[in-house]
């Protein structure tokens, strides 16, 4: 009986290790190939290391796109989106959580339509709207469709409802106005929900490709993902995979490191983004 349990345990361990190795292989070889001389592909006998470890691929990848600029652009895109979201979502969540007004449910339903019709699938029409507003190829155009967030609203409305109403009443008696109540009673008691929202928002916009690709032309404001696309398209003609892998690592490194540092928070936030 005990033997059977030990066996089962061993099997689970082996399965786990095998799966982890399969999942890690692409990353592992991306790193290897980025340090191999371009002329020595993995199929030439030696699968792991080339004749030397070289930084040539990184040097060439760095020339193709202005990566530091793309980094700054991605940062501005993500931060600018999140900052405005935090304000719009907070005030709307308070109204829906704690105020009674005519048409409340129907207005909430309209906002929730965003979850069912994501702006990402409305490419053509949103492209037109941005052009009509004269915002084509601006940073505002990148961010504006995301400034209202139904997901954030739902998450915070739920959290705000769990804040005891007595806290608000006490603050009102002490003479706090509406914004003081929201800030000192609701925001301060909902920090984990804000953190969850921030991580989901940041990681999804950091990875966003299609909208920035369509709505911008100038290198000066395009984010990392669009820079990587350019590298992919340059590589297509000559199959310089060493260079492409080097560039890919430049782009994915920050989020991977961020995840290594804040793993628990990431896992919890992503779980929250789904069910409750």
């Amino acid at each position, binding site marked *: 009986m005990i033997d059977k349990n030990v066996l089962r345990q061993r099997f689970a361990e082996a399965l786990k290790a095998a799966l982890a190795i399969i999942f890690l292989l692409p990353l592992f070889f991306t790193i290897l190939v980025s340090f191999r001389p371009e002329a020595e592909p993995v199929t030439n006998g030696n699968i792991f290391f080339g004749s030397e470890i070289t930084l040539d691929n990184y040097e060439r990848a760095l020339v193709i796109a202005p990566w530091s600029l793309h980094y700054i652009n991605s940062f501005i895109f993500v931060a600018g989106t999140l900052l405005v979201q935090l304000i719009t979502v907070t005030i709307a969540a308070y109204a829906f959580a704690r105020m009674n007004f005519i048409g409340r449910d129907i207005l909430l339903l309209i906002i929730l339509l965003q979850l069912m019709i994501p702006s*990402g699938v409305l490419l053509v029409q949103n492209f037109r709207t941005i052009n009509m507003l004269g915002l084509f190829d601006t940073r505002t155009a990148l961010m504006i469709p995301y400034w209202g967030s139904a997901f954030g609203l739902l998450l915070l409305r739920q959290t705000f409802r769990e804040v005891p109403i007595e806290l608000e009443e006490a603050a009102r008696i002490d003479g706090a106005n509406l914004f003081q109540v929201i800030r000192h009673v609701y925001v301060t008691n909902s920090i984990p929900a804000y953190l969850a929202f921030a991580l989901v928002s940041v990681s999804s916009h950091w990875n966003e490709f299609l909208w920035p690709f369509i709505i911008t032309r100038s290198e000066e404001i395009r984010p990392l993902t669009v820079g990587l696309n350019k590298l992919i398209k340059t590589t297509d003609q000559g199959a310089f995979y060493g260079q492409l892998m080097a560039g890919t690592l430049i782009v994915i490194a920050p989020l991977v490191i961020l995840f290594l540092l804040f793993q628990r928070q990431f896992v919890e936030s992503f779980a929250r983004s789904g069910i409750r």
Partner: protein
Amino acid sequence: MPARLRQKSPLAFLQPYLLIAPTLILVLMFNVVPAFRTVNDSLYKPARGLNAAGKPPDYVGVENFRDLFDDSHYMGGRFLRAFRNTIIFALATVCIGVPLGLLLALLLNRRQPLLGLWRFAVFYPSLLPLIGAASIWSFIFSDSIGLANAVLKTFGHPGLNWLGDRNLVLLSIIIVNIWKQAGYFMIFFLAGLQNIPRNIYESSSLDGAGPLEQFAYLTLPLLRRTVLFVVVISFTFAFQTVEQLQALGEGGPADSANLLLYLIFQNISERRNWGYVNAMTIVLIGVVLIFTLSNFLLFERDETNR
């Protein structure tokens, strides 16, 4: 008491509307109104207001839709292939990716040494930008120097044309998608598993239930909601997939691996096809709407029942 007094002034009456105004206006601008305009424009050819020559667009009724579902029409053929591919893509992800995510969650649910490292190993793909993931796999699948073929060759197989063979491209993209999503699905299963009380298992093992019975009769039924949720999101994701294709074959030879949103994206600058683009968008929205709506109804009902 003071709150009630304040509600009588006109400003107080307006207050909630002012608070929700920014969110409401943005959602109307970028989600609701464009959705209605898509419906309208899908009835014109080419879409309204896009004629540089000033020629008014023709109202054609549902003709754009009829063309889309006509296999012999140049756009219909492409649309039907992309639509079929998208459904295969979604189904394959669900059938393989979801059980894999559950398996990973079961393996990584307990406290164990190096747990953080194990979780990183399977979750990191879901954090990568899709375009970065696709870029990595473009090397793995590359014809002459790729890793996949290097492995096949060590087993004496001549190697496959992963991104060029019209029977293989869709499979290649599905593999990438499963690799990318399984860790993300795992997160939801981990959360679901944590909500199952431990003592249920203890009492059932006292009754003589083995691990397989426990999984079949306890874990799986208790995770029903989570499974359903994950299936629904993986379907809606599949209908919004674009980036992988950008780096992996661009829809494959003769659209053999094209997906719906990528086909829309490919035609966004083809003015004469804008009527079709709008009609395809309607189909896409329709599918996404059905899935998210069913998700919403299922879980909202569950919430209220509790």
